[in-house]
């Protein structure tokens, strides 16, 4: 088989994801059909639920906020060639940094409490990712293994901290004390009544700034160049005089700090307290978001919106069509992740051949390739 011509850029970043998405929805439609519901109606409900009214759109944005943070966290590490699967755990422990500072400052003003808690969450989340980074850099322990193990350590640590340290006596639920108004991030609904009761809050502005930050960091700074060099070819970066071990630790720390921002959205923006398992798997969704968004901030923004819409629309589906259970919605979300993340190359060979046929200067080569294939 001869080398293929790469796809035009627009086809790679727009057409291919759309095709994958279409296939995912097609298969999901079959699943919906199998339980005896109308797939078209289901799609209509999902789209209406996610974008059709203020509350629903607000929830979509709220989920997207989390996914932007975790998607960026994954992307920064991925540019350095590291597969950080521990975004969930990093966001979870970052809740500690956020709640401790927010509780301490909740008698002041959110303008003080929010930035302070952001630093706290970034430090704790960054530290939680730094350890696997250190182990990878200095001891060669693979970061995939260590970060996933750290998710479990994070869960154990947080259960201990919430139940035995942060929980006020006489509270039955495993949760910290509730933040006073000064420790809460303002809700967008306070400015735009359009959003109804939805929990989308100013953290989404932080998420948008984080997108810009990552873009500048990765493509317009020396550090970003070094990280990408490491990711493309560790031997080259080492030959160029960069310290690979230092870069690995820096990349993981930035990644963890970005994941830690989820804690700001959840702890200070939505729950106003630290609850068990507040991350609710968004660390793992972030991986799919980053893969689908090609590790680029613009792609991550749209992929995060898509997954936010799936979460909120799926919830709507459960209300409107009682035959669709919680597990079915997980199946649909999983199919989207499967086709856009794990099997994103499914259409690539066919699409590349198609494009070769439609491009005049490549047509001749494509024909000769297929002739050679049929002859061999």
């Amino acid at each position, binding site marked *: 088989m001869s080398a293929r011509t790469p796809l035009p850029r627009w086809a790679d970043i727009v057409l291919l994801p759309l095709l994958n998405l279409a296939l995912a929805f097609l298969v999901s439609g079959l699943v919906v059909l199998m339980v005896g519901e109308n797939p078209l109606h289901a799609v209509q409900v999902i789209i209406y639920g996610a974008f059709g009214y203020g509350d629903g759109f607000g929830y979509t944005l709220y989920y997207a906020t989390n996914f932007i943070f975790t998607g960026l966290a994954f992307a920064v590490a991925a540019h350095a060639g590291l597969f950080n699967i521990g975004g969930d755990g990093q966001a979870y422990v970052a809740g500690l940094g956020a709640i401790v500072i927010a509780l301490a400052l909740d008698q002041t003003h959110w303008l003080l409490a929010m930035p302070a808690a952001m630093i706290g969450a970034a430090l704790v989340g960054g530290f939680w990712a730094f350890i696997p980074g250190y182990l990878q850099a200095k001891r060669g322990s693979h970061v995939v293994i260590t970060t996933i193990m750290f998710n479990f350590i994070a869960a154990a640590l947080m259960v201990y901290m919430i139940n035995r340290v942060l929980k006020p006596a006489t509270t039955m639920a495993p949760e910290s004390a509730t933040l006073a108004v000064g420790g809460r991030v303002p809700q967008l609904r306070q400015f735009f009544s359009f959003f109804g009761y939805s929990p989308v809050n100013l953290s989404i502005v932080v998420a948008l700034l984080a997108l810009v930050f990552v873009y500048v960091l990765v493509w317009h700074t020396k550090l970003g160049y070094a990280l990408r060099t490491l990711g493309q070819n560790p031997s080259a970066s080492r030959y160029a005089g960069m310290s690979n071990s230092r870069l690995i630790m820096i990349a993981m720390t930035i990644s963890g700090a970005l994941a830690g921002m989820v804690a700001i959205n959840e702890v200070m923006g939505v729950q106003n307290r630290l609850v068990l398992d507040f991350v609710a798997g968004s660390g793992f969704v972030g991986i799919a978001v980053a893969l689908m968004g090609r590790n680029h901030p613009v792609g991550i923004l749209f992929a995060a919106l898509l997954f936010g819409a799936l979460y909120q629309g799926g919830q709507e589906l459960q*209300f409107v069509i009682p035959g669709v259970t919680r597990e079915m919605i997980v199946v649909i979300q999983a199919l989207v992740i499967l086709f856009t993340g794990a099997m994103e190359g499914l259409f690539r060979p066919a699409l590349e051949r198609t494009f070769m046929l439609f491009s005049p200067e490549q047509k001749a080569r494509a024909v000769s390739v297929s002739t050679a294939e049929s002859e061999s």
Partner: protein
Amino acid sequence: MKFNNISKAALGGVALSAVLAGAALADPAVIYDLGGKFDKSFNEAAYNGAEAWKAETGGNYLDFELQNDAQREQALRRFASQGANPIVMAGFSWNAALEAVAPEFADTNFVVIDTVVDQPNVQSIMFDEHTGSFLVGALAAMKSETGRVGFVGGMDVPLIHRFYCGYAYGARQVNPDVELTENYTGTTPAAWNDPVTAGELAKAQIDNGVDVIFAAAGGSGLGVLQAAADAGKFSIGVDSNQNYLHPGSVLTSMLKRVDNAVHTAFNEAGDDATFKPGRIDLGLADEGVDYALDEHNQDLITDEMQVQVDELKQGIIAGEIEVHDYYTDNACPL
């Protein structure tokens, strides 16, 4: 009442009319907690109560399974503006959501199980897990030949500590020298449905000489019951009557009648005439909690044991025996 709810929905700006046109009004609703409807335990008990009500009255009810904490308020508003009444919630994490939503829907009646929310239209149902566990702890200590009794909890959360604390007090009441072993299946919600790990913990306890194990672990508890049956030891079930699972090995079950609570709520809380807002404690006296005795375990519990445990039960009901409640101080001083 119905009209109030409808107008509230309109005033609230919840423009759902297009999708909700088919929804029936004043059906009761139940919202399950994160464990999911079929968790073989707490949520499933709530589901069974709702199904029993449906079978009995032929009525229809709405239900919803949460996927994350952010959906709590959303689900409550959704059902309330849809006109569901009463809305029953299972789980200990409802305080913040219900305190926000209950005042917005003054004409809707809410019933929450396992936590207390102080609002004029909320009924809070609490179960005395500690006294029920006390009785099975006493039975465990009576049955144990080695003087060692074990406890396998689900997730390491305050509610399960409350079970343990009552169990420990009950065992100590019968045998002050009894040795207690306390294990938890895990620290994530997966711990409610991990019978393999729970079974391994039970085996480890049995290897250390424990011969009666109380499983307060939701679906994971089935692993404990199995491990005890395999080893020829005794186990104690939880929530619903699990005596039938391994007759001759399941010593008894600590009953927590969430199903009855949901059933009663569906019958009574929808009507303001029969709705009783405020805190309701269901304990031994109201048979909200109890130990199970049926044909599957009557050979395991001798007449002596039964007399003794019923004495303890009467003592608790009469207030002569004080059982420490973990919720009061987050501690279990033995």
